[in-house]
């Protein structure tokens, strides 16, 4: 039994620091102007999405281009639970995770028959099919273009039974009628799931199961000739990461109870891939950092409009100002994706290991300066040790 909590010292420290960073977000994000609940909820939710995706992509190397399908499935499942059962977020999340998991089981079962680019294409195709179905045939379930929303006359059987009756206003998701799921409490609710999700990921990374997944990524042939049936391993990783996505989708619905098909679109799937690669594929922290950076800069860049730019460059001479505003406006507001694309190209070209590689390079640089020639060996030891 004691093996359940046997974590290495390094893992315990990482976990504690990570938890502190997440829980103290409302404080340390203030100087960045990002300490408001909506954005912090996004940080937590997309963090969950990215670390879950990393269990599949980072450990097994299978690049799914369809994870948004599970995100969307989770959202729909959660909103339906709100409508039919209760505004309590717990059953909604349980249902979201189960539905996304089943969905991932079905899609993964078929897609994992292929590897490499064919696997990616298959997942992309399944996700686009889900997106189209949500818009067309499945309208009775998804409410098509309008999206799935709460209504005053929803049955909500559990809430009705306990007398949390329907009033004139739409209800808000709440924990046992006590804590409402918007604002700061909503952030902390999501943050706790991010921390739990991070903990589980840490355990997977440090477990024999995690090593098997890495071995599959490294050489799947050798795995087979060594007596491993690799399919159940990759499928499990796929389902686990699908469940993380379902949890994230469920939390989106908890903080804002509606679900739309656009959550399943391929751009949403692509964003998950970008976050993971930008932060550092296969590292513990990287994907979370990637998710935070993208959501932070999306927030800043997309709020810029021409007026803001004119004010910003007002000090320039007339003609130049106009030109500068024209050029920069291509990269902000609606054009934010252009900036993201450029940054992505730069990172992949110069830092293929993402932000985490950048961090490691900086640390290495300082260590070299510090310990001179005396302890040159410690660095090369670190370089040959397995990545965490």
């Amino acid at each position, binding site marked *: 039994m004691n*093996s*359940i909590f*046997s*974590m*290495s010292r390094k893992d315990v420290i990482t976990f504690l620091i990570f938890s502190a960073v997440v829980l103290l977000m409302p404080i340390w994000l203030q100087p960045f102007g990002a300490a408001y609940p909506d954005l912090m909820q996004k940080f937590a939710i997309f963090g969950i999405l990215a670390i879950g995706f990393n269990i599949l992509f980072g450990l097994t190397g299978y690049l799914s281009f369809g994870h948004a399908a599970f995100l969307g499935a989770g959202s729909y499942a959660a909103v339906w639970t709100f409508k039919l059962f209760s505004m309590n977020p717990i059953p909604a999340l349980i249902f979201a995770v189960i539905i996304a998991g089943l969905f991932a089981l079905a899609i993964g079962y078929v897609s994992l028959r292929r590897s490499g680019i064919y696997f990616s294409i298959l997942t992309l195709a399944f996700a686009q099919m889900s997106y189209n179905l949500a818009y067309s045939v499945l309208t009775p379930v998804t409410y098509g273009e309008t999206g799935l929303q709460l209504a005053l006359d929803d049955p909500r059987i559990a809430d009705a039974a306990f007398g949390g009756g329907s009033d004139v206003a739409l209800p808000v998701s709440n924990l046992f009628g006590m804590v409402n799921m918007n604002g700061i409490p909503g952030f902390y609710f999501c943050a706790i799931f991010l921390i739990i999700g991070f903990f*589980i990921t840490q*355990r*997977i990374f*440090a*477990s*024999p*199961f*995690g*090593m*098997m997944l*890495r*071995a599959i*990524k*490294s*050489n799947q*042939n*050798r*795995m*087979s*000739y*060594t*007596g*491993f*049936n*690799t399919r*159940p*391993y990759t499928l*499990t990783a796929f389902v686990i990461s699908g469940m993380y996505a379902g949890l994230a989708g469920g939390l989106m619905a908890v903080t804002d109870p509606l679900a739309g098909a656009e959550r399943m679109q391929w751009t949403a799937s692509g964003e998950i891939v970008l976050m993971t690669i930008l932060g550092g594929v296969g590292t513990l922290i990287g994907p979370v950092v990637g998710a935070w950076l993208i959501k932070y800069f999306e927030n800043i860049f997309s709020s810029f409009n021409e007026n803001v730019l004119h004010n910003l460059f007002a000090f320039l001479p007339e003609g130049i100002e106009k030109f500068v505003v024209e050029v920069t406006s291509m990269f902000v507001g609606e054009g934010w994706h252009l900036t993201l694309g450029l940054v992505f190209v730069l990172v992949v070209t110069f830092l293929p290991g993402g932000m985490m590689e950048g961090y490691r390079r900086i640390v290495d640089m300082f260590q070299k300066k510090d310990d001179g020639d005396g302890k040159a060996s410690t660095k090369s*030891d670190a370089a*040959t*040790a*397995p990545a965490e």
Partner: protein
Amino acid sequence: MTTNNENIVLHVADVHKTFGGLHALSDIDLQIEEGKTHAIIGPNGAGKSTLLNVVVGRLAPTRGAVVFDGQVLTGKQPHEINQVGVARVFQTPEIFPDLTVLQNVMIPALAKRDGDFKLNFLSSLEDEVEIREEAEHMLEDVGMKASKDMFASSLSRGDKRRMELAMCLMQHPRLLLLDEPTAGMSRHDTNTTIDLLKKIKERGMTKVIIEHDMHVVFSLADKISVLAGGRIIAEGTPEEVRNNPKVQEAYLGGAH
């Protein structure tokens, strides 16, 4: 199936393999005795690796079957074939380049327990003390203890090969297939490997070894089959094969 049947652990029965119009293997009938070291020699392109590919399930034979210890292997998945006790060292090393040497050697030992899948993500790799110690011993045996924390990708070609051998030995297979295990090794490492393979022989493991180095072949093999153009052209003890005129001809005609 002529002589003492019960001692035959591997029987390659009338196997043919064609690639398009190319007859890579024709009429191959090979019987390997339990506990013996059986060498397969022959010029490049003779079909030696193809033969092993058929045995481990990488290739399906066009005709014929492979029987191991009474079970038909043909049609089984590679991991199932490994699980019944067949391990292979490949001609180009098949290792886990992104993992450390120690992890490379630990994984095969976990295959018996976890091969058919086990979701033990709450346990930690740190708890696998027994298997780690076994792996460290094995690395000591093959003289690689010092590099246990290195990434496998940074090893020399000869060391990769030695590590792959260690990986196979961790499984205590009943049948070990070696495809040119000393290629790319220095004379010294080759001799260490020969000694190691001799030690295994004392423990009774059956081995099929493909080798170009005649020094290795004659110091290890109990029996030799000579393959040329996809056919077995001679078979016998090392002495018999050495003096066979057909063999000398094939080797003069071939690359080696």
